[in-house]
């Protein structure tokens, strides 16, 4: 992009370098949790009237940074300045008093309470005593209107709202406080495009008023349409802060991923398509994962790795759950060969194994041994009349752990004693132990260290080579590019493009993610 073009794209945005005095200035923040270094040397500055994006991979320290700024976690070293004066957010209350309002990733909504009470939550002492119920309702409605929630009965329980609307209620709550810096920590992840546009319009208005916004996002489109500047974090360090005209997905991706990592990933053997797709293991017909959304067909063949990509919240996870039998599609059906998959039991019978996303809450059985964790799904194969056959369990677990290269003291030690990467290998081993024909994996490499990642890649490639079909959801584009024979890109709860190996690269994927209803052919052409 030429400099002139970059300037043109700046549009109404002001050149911030010229603005001088920052509202918030954080320098060299460092924060550790035990052995883990969450933040190493992180600096970021926000000027008045700016929308500032923070980007980085999972585990790069974004959430820790937000928590320090909001007074939830204390930094070990480094300095914070607010209005050019030394400042320490020693508690959430102190941060709020200074004028920092934060909307967290997890929506803190009390489902039993009314929308009104949820918005007013925490303000009781300050406002309620002075406000009549009528005035209070007015305040709540005003602040909800700012985020685009106009026709809403504020006296109905917040639990009845959709996840997206609950997030918006969270935003509305923060807006009621007098604030000068609004921090959004991936608080838009569940919000639909339309609602998001309204929210963005509100954020732009705040910018015009001279207020500042710091937001964490994984979505390139958000960053592109909102941010004046973007600070890139990588393994706890702030790498660089980019001015708007210089923010592009390639630059960000390159900056976000360390050079070391790319080397490991390039070193992983690229998966070779085994040629003809002969034997469809899973047949999907007329599937619609959400009511009213378009339906689609898809076939998954033996021996291939099919990537599942798309911007967050476009129906990929629901699709995986349908294939794994843990969710009923709103229309259409999933067949494994000829058997209809309608429940997790059907899927198990058809040898479809599912790896959920969150290792801690959905994966490991923390108090139990590695032995138990690896074999729990395969116990029936190891028993006669419900009694475990002597030695069979140890033998299987031993075999699987060796195949998966799990580094451990012995099988009897608790799974919690393993590192994250090794836990993940053990969990994949749990699937392998059931001798699956189809693997459905929800972001298996998330939060896994580099070495373990490369080993997991190899395991997946070998499994595919042995005839297993793999459906792989990944939030990292490079992973999809390295591992997959083709990638199904989701948009608006349906497959919008299928990109074949020949034309598979990050550029094509990003184009497909943003292209509204482009056919696979178009995507191919765009790549050429």
């Amino acid at each position: 992009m030429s400099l002139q073009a970059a300037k043109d794209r700046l549009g109404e945005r002001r050149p911030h370098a010229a603005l001088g005095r920052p509202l918030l200035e954080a320098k060299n923040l460092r924060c550790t949790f035990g052995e883990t270094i969450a933040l190493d040397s992180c600096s970021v500055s926000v000027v008045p009237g700016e929308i500032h994006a923070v980007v980085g991979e999972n585990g790069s320290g974004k959430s820790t940074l937000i928590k320090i700024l909001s007074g939830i976690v204390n930094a070990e070293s480094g300095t914070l300045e607010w209005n050019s004066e030394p400042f320490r957010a020693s508690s959430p209350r102190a941060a709020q008093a200074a004028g920092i309002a934060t909307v967290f990733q997890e929506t803190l909504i009390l489902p039993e309470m009314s929308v009104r009470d949820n918005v007013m939550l925490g303000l009781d002492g300050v406002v309620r005593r002075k406000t009549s119920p009528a005035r209070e309702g007015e305040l709540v409605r005003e602040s909800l209107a700012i985020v685009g929630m106009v026709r809403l009965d504020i006296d109905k329980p917040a639990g009845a709202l959709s996840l997206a609307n609950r997030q918006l209620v969270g935003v509305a709550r923060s807006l009621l406080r007098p604030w000068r810096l609004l921090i959004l920590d991936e608080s838009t992840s569940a919000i639909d495009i339309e609602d998001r546009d309204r929210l963005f319009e509100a954020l732009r208005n705040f910018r015009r008023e001279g207020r500042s916004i710091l937001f964490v996002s994984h979505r390139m489109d958000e960053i592109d349409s909102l941010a004046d500047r973007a600070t890139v974090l990588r393994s706890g360090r702030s790498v660089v802060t980019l001015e708007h005209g210089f923010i592009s997905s390639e630059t960000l991706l390159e900056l976000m991923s360390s050079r070391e990592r790319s080397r490991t990933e390039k070193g992983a053997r690229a998966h070779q398509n085994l040629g003809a797709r002969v034997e469809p293991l899973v047949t999907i017909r007329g599937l619609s994962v959400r009511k009213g959304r378009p339906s689609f067909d898809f076939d998954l063949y033996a021996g291939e790795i099919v990537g599942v990509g798309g911007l967050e919240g476009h129906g990929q996870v629901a699709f995986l759950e349908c294939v794994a039998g843990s969710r009923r599609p709103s229309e259409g059906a999933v067949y494994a060969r000829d058997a209809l998959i309608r429940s997790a039991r059907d899927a198990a019978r058809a040898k479809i194994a599912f790896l959920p996303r969150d290792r801690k809450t959905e994966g490991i059985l923390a108090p139990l041994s590695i032995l138990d964790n690896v074999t729990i799904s395969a116990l029936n194969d190891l028993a006669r009349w419900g009694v475990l056959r002597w030695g069979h369990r140890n033998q299987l677990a031993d075999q699987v752990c060796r195949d998966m290269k799990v580094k451990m003291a012995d099988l009897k030690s608790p799974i919690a004693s393993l590192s994250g990467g090794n836990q993940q290998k053990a969990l994949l081993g749990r699937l392998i132990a059931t001798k699956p024909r189809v693997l459905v994996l929800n972001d298996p490499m998330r939060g896994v260290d580099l070495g373990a990642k490369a080993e997991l890649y190899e395991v997946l490639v070998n499994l595919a080579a042995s005839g297993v079909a793999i459906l792989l959801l990944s939030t990292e584009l490079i992973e999809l590019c390295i591992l997959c024979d083709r990638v199904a890109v989701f948009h608006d709860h349906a497959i919008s493009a299928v990109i074949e190996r020949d034309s598979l690269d990050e550029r094509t994927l990003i184009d497909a993610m943003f292209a509204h209803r482009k056919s696979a052919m178009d995507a191919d052409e765009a790549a050429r």
Partner: protein
Amino acid sequence: MVAALQRFHRAAGFAVPLGLAVALFFVINVLIPGYANLNSLRSLLLLSSLLGIAAVGQTLTIVIGGFDLSIPAVIGLCNVLFSLLYGAGWSAFTAIIFILALAILIGLANGFASRYLQLNPLVVTLASGSIIFGAIWAGTHGEVAGSVPDWLVTMVSVIGKTGPIPLPGAVVLWVIVSAAILFLEQRTVLGRWIFAAGANPRAAELARVPMLFVWMSVYGISAFLAGVTGILLAGFSGAADPTVGAAYLFTTVAAVVVGGTPLTGGRGGYGRTIAGCLVVTELSTLLVGLGLDQAAQQIFLGFLIVALVALYGREPHVSMRV
């Protein structure tokens, strides 16, 4: 000090409650001169065996992350029914089969309601206990005329023998039940499923552990063994009493906790509860031996168990687990 004790406790497994049981025996011997004789030991084992059989269900339901508050009611029901049916001329065998089948049905219903209907097991078992008690009173008006066979009386009498073994039948039965439950926990599919279900219900379900089956089995086992206890108690007192199981609510939970099975599920097991039963029985024996009346016994037993649990049965604090 407490932290060190806790660490030692976790490392040593159920050696600690077992050691405590042995130590308590000597303490009692000092406090109540002339206690240490064969009959005292027999009676200790006999009382422990009744508690132990009833506490199986409490252990397993706690391991899967539940609770069984209906144990006293099931004990009472089976106690009354056995006296009634046997008194009415049923053969002991048919009566036992009928009663235990009924108990299992109650247990399955508890498990079904807790898991499938997603109701809190505390509420479910509290309610089913109340229903059962109500039914007993409605059916008997508090007066039960019945009788029990002589062999049942022998089974639970201190001087009773089991063939060549110089121990009452109830104790031998407890040994058999214990062995079966320990085998179930360690060497069967259901056993490992039970621990997985308690360790992380969401993960276990996604790992395709049949949760409903596990919950219904565990509650079925619990009610079944509560029923067995009820029948044994019929021989103990010689007459039927709907409230005979009342004491077993607190004592079963106490035995589990004193044994060291945490209420958070997925850990511990029946091995620990065996030792817990001995400790709890010894404590109540001690209080009886010191000449305390029923009310005072209850008060002191409550305090003693809280003290014991505070000493070593506690969950480690969050800060020690992170």
